[in-house]
């Protein structure tokens, strides 16, 4: 089947509860895009034009349905004072969390136009939007307050504080929320659609109780802010989320991107309330063969494409940088073939 709609038109129909020509296909092609352009990772995440050009090249090569502006979840924390190192061919590595050298009150809300690598994002959005914004949604991954909060702190200390010093945690999260809102504000003005990512709130990291107490309320406040704009908000939580699946509708997200959960159970539990995105195993993309991927993606899409509120075929997490191109192509082709709706 040949596509009838552009990715922009396809996504536009999905978010108003209409069936597009086929399901949207949005594997989380983030820094993997650098490999498509034979670009050093550092050149990708420190230069907005590079990031956008790599994303466009990946889109042209694989034929998926979204640009993904993202490098790593420390981007806001860095702008608030956490120190990162930039390896030439790896993602930024955190060296000193901001709260190691600052008090909470000293954390300031960064200006995304001028601070740290936030301008890289804005430049990437504007470049991609000017190039393809009429045809393709420009998704911009914004770390949720809980994830940023942890990136501002020593992780273990932060997790201990969730038990022992809830007031301190709330203060950190409030600052992180304000910073996320500021980044969203500028992202929207540049033409990007914010998608909220909260990997450190997954059940692989924190308990459902901690999720409900600390992560969820701030996800919801950020999402409610975006709803003021009438935007359709994606929330992505990678890793294990089975224990919190039933809480996800309380975030007010419109679309939920999930990773290590049973899709059939999730469909049964929440597909009447949220559009689902997911959840192909990214290690398979890195290490398996096109034949296996074709088979498994076909099965995944067949099982999920009729989810009540809609479905986007995607990976559960970021596509690994080392994933072979032919595996990505197999993923997209299988999803296109199986995800067709129109007769």
């Amino acid at each position: 089947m040949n596509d009838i709609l552009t990715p922009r038109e396809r996504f536009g129909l999905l978010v108003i509860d209409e069936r597009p020509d086929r399901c949207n296909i949005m594997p989380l092609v983030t820094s993997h895009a650098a490999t498509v352009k034979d670009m050093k990772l550092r050149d990708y995440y420190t230069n907005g034009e590079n990031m956008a050009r790599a994303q466009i090249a990946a889109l042209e090569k694989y034929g998926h349905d979204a640009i993904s502006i993202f490098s790593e979840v420390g981007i806001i924390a860095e702008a608030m004072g956490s120190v990162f190192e930039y390896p030439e061919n790896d993602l930024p590595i955190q060296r000193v969390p901001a709260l190691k050298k600052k008090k909470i009150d000293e954390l300031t809300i960064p200006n995304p136009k001028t601070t740290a690598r936030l301008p890289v994002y804005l430049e990437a959005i504007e470049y991609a939007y000017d190039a393809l914004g009429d045809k393709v949604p420009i998704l911009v991954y914004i770390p949720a307050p809980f994830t940023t909060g942890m990136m501002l702190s020593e992780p273990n200390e932060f997790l201990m504080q969730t038990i022992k010093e809830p007031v301190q945690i709330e203060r950190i999260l409030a600052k992180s929320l304000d910073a996320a809102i500021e980044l969203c504000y500028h992202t929207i003005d540049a033409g990007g659609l914010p998608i909220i990512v909260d990997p450190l709130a997954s059940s692989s990291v924190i308990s459902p109780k901690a999720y409900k107490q600390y992560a969820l309320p701030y996800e919801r406040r950020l999402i409610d802010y975006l709803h003021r704009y009438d935007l359709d908000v994606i929330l992505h939580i990678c890793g294990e989320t089975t224990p919190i699946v039933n809480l996800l509708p309380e975030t007010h997200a419109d679309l939920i991107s999930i990773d290590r959960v049973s899709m059939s159970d999730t469909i049964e539990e929440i597909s009447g309330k949220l559009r689902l995105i997911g959840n192909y195993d990214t290690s398979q993309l890195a290490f398996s063969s096109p034949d296996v991927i074709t088979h498994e993606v076909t099965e995944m899409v067949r099982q999920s494409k009729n989810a009540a509120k809609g479905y986007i075929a995607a990976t559960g997490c970021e596509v690994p940088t080392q994933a072979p191109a032919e595996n990505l192509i197999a993923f997209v082709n299988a999803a296109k073939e199986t995800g067709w709706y129109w007769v």
Partner: protein
Amino acid sequence: MFENIAPQKIDLRQWSTQFRLLEDTDIKQFKYYGNDEWGVYLSPPATFMVYGARELKKLKFDNSLSALRLWGFAFNESERLFRARQSGKHIVAAMGDLGTVPVITMSFPECVPFYPDCTWWTPFFNESTVLLDKASELGTPEGSCFVRSTLAAFHKMAYFPKPDILFASTGASCDDYSCIMQMVEDMGYELNWLEIPYRRHRKDYHVEERYTKTAHGFEYPERFETYLVDEYKRVWHKMKQLTGTDDTERLKQSINKNNRLRRLTHEIRELTHNANIAPYPGLEMMVIEFGNLYGYADIDEWLNILSMVKETILGRIEKGLGVLRPDAIPLAWVTPTADPLLLNIVEDLGGRVVATEYVINQALVEIDEEIDPFVALARSFMDASMIGSTEERIRNITTGVDSGKVAGVIISNMLGCSHCAMETRLIEEKLKRVPVLAIDVPGPLGITEQLRTRIAAFLEMLR
């Protein structure tokens, strides 16, 4: 809200900043179809830019709450039509007649008329050739008008839902669009064709017949009324078949409601065009004039919006405030521009639109509520812009010129529109007592510095 902010035109980023001042309750108070879940539409221009309307980055907008409401509502139309369908309403495509078929179809319960024709603005708002390229692929010649994007929209079914019924008006109408409608029919859509008669004047060689006049004083053979009544009754019959209802009282109610809309639009035009300082920008005024055709798929909410617009305008006039400089050069604009940016540019360079001929005069005429409703509709339609002579079409412009209200005229030609190609020279001829600038509106992203310079030179000359 925003009452204390001085009126001005602001860009998308300034609107985003101003939008932050709104409380959630301010945003949620306005909704279409009364729906809380998806009917809220008060969004800043940035929202629609994020969803692909790229030209919004370049445009300037009025900074009032009424304008925010107006833009949010107009840009939400596509979603609104899909939501209408999801809520069980009938979607009625009215094509080519520009003004009358919606009045009839609104008489039927749960029926939402819209004009697929208006898709011609989409390539410009999106700065995109997606629809135009697809239309070419589907067989329209590149030399046809931008309205060919409608064909691509029918193919894609992503801009409006598949209509339950389609009415297509041809005859003394846009010839390019007649061809497009034929191609839509070739795709398998069942079109209900109506024919629009040419409003001809009495000539010696005509066989003897009775003539009458429209509200604007245009003469036409009286039998055209009977002819149009029959055409409109066919529309009625088809709608009756679709909905299973047949209540002409509702037609009278629909006429009454549409007259309210027409009166309100007329008042807003008069206030805006005659104020000392322009109280509302030309681009928003064009959106208002076109909303007059069908209320952007929710006439009740559109009426509420226009009431707010009128309040904004009255408030500004009372305070002697406006959005353009007091010495802006008064212009008439003939033929709606497909690229909205042109209206912004003309105002930025010192012009001000005080008279328009946007080919929809028929929708600005009140429909007689004292006579048979079908006859009343036929009579009001005989005032249509495009069905008579050029002289009649631009009569309100020539009146403006003669009274000294209009200092110059801008005609926007649509590339490929054969109607424009023929008529622009004629209009120029007939308006030769006033300077005229004819602009060939280029395709999306086609406005050049050269074009800006031409407009600037024209305005400088007028000054």
